[in-house]
């Protein structure tokens, strides 16, 4: 369990995180989503005790990071895959980490094997591809078999096979009852790998909820086809709903549930040929939610949107 409580972090004039509060529960994969520069990495650094909050606090299983006796056994993190001395081998890097937290050195071979980099473990990390570095970072996070795991943009640089592997892997960590907190600026990625999502923009919390809740929240609309659109439309509009009729004869109804529309059609004696509740894609929800909070808009986008 990670609790972020009214966290604010300033760097000089930059307000990187602004009064941010949320919780990350064990047993599920929680996605941490926000546009570039929204404060995801900063929040993670504060959670890891690397940067001090300007105000507010963060606890991991009710403890401050600095109080953890053997932090690698309690929290594993991949913050920056390339943050390893390029001249050192993966094995020696992991060995030093293990020894510092008195983790049995046999774990080094286990995590190397598990992340699939055992064959290059004795090569210098400087020569690794981004994907291999990500795997090494994940190996480091797993070293202490910790109940809480943080991954900052872990999918960067992974091939499709690696992405599939990492998704199932996050899921399995959550199933084991661990707290899994994964950041990304790609909603599509989160939609497939997370159960719960924390969305931030410009350092502020925009929303927190399950993937289902977030996609349903914008739903409200139902796609309808019927034998007599005009009749059904007048009935629905009379009930206070808005109805858009498209050229292909489909109507998009807002304000009524599929069930209510079915009832209305029955009462009006109109046969329905299609009745489909619309789910917003997580991508759309994200774009909507963060539209006002995107810090770096490309000039092309900026002109298009006026």
């Amino acid at each position, binding site marked *: 369990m990670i609790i972020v409580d009214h966290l604010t972090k300033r760097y000089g004039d930059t307000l990187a995180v602004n009064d941010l509060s949320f919780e990350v529960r064990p047993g599920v994969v929680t996605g941490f989503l926000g546009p570039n520069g929204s404060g995801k990495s900063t929040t993670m650094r504060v959670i890891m005790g690397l*940067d001090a909050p300007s105000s507010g606090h963060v606890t991991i299983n009710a403890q401050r990071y600095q109080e953890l006796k*053997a932090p690698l056994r309690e929290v594993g993190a991949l913050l920056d895959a390339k943050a390893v001395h390029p001249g050192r081998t993966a094995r020696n890097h992991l060995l030093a980490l293990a020894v510092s937290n008195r983790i049995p050195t046999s774990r080094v071979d286990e995590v190397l094997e598990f992340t699939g980099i055992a064959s290059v473990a004795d090569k210098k990390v400087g020569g690794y591809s981004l994907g291999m570095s990500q795997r090494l970072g994940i190996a480091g996070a797993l070293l202490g078999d910790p109940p809480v795991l943080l991954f900052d943009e872990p999918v960067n640089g992974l091939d499709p096979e690696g992405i599939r592997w990492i998704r199932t892997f996050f899921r399995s960590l959550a199933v084991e009852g661990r707290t899994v907190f994964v950041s990304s600026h790609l909603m599509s990625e989160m939609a497939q790998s997370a159960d719960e999502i924390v969305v931030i923009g410009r350092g502020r919390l925009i929303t927190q909820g399950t993937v289902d809740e977030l996609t349903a929240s914008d739903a409200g609309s139902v796609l309808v086809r019927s034998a007599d659109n005009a009749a059904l439309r007048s009935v629905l509009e009379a009930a206070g709903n808005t109805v858009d009729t498209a050229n292909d004869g489909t109507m998009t109804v807002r304000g009524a549930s599929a069930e209510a529309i079915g009832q209305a059609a029955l009462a009006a004696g109109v046969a329905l040929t299609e009745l489909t509740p619309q789910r917003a894609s997580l991508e759309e929800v994200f774009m909507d939610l963060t539209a006002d909070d995107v810090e770096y808009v490309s000039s092309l986008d900026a002109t298009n949107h006026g």
Partner: protein
Amino acid sequence: MDSVTVASVTHAEWIKFRTVRSTIVGYVVTVVLTLGLGALITSAIRGHWQTMEPLRKLTFDPVSTSLGGTLFAQFAVGVIGIMFITSEYSSGSIRTTLAATPRRVQVVVAKLIVLVSVTAVVAEVVVFAAFLMGQRIYEGVVPTASLASGAVLRSVILGGVYLTLLATLGFGLGLLLRQQSAAISVFTSLLLIVPIIVFVLPQSWQTSVTRYEPSSLGHAMMSVTPSLDMFGAWTATLVLASYVVCVVVLSTVTLVRRDA
């Protein structure tokens, strides 16, 4: 649960220290410079001994001259100390290190234990070797010194202490500045540029300021009979050690206070 201790962090730092090439190269350069330049200097003195002025012969010190290579090796050990910490900042691995060891003072203590003990061993071995080699080269032509004399033994030992202190100074500067090039610039400035600045000061200041320069302190530490305008060998050691302690304490406070 076994908690993180200075001992476990020291073990980890020892692994990190010995598994990068810059450390090995740094010590090889230290050895080569101390012995190689020691051989060069002592051979040159032997060659010119007959034609040397009587006054210089009178104040000739067979010990400090045989340790002359340390004046070059001091840069090598300084860079070892600097790289030990700045490489963590340049690669970003400092964050991994500090996440694994949230009590940051433990990281500094562990790194110092590793750096000081390895450098002390290498430096003492190499200064004794340089001393013995130098006396061998002087033998028969130039007066030689013997380790049987307490003052000679002290000078040689303090030669190794000087190199160890400078490695530690480099580490402190690296930790403070977090950047290799900046730390190397400041380190070399302290050793080379400060004496030049002092040189343009009024004569009366020069004599009182010069003795505080790191390089003068080193010379005093390695001289059997330091000249009168210098500190005595032990005082010089204390003065240099206090510089190093100040820089290390200041940089540790910064490490604890600043964001990683």
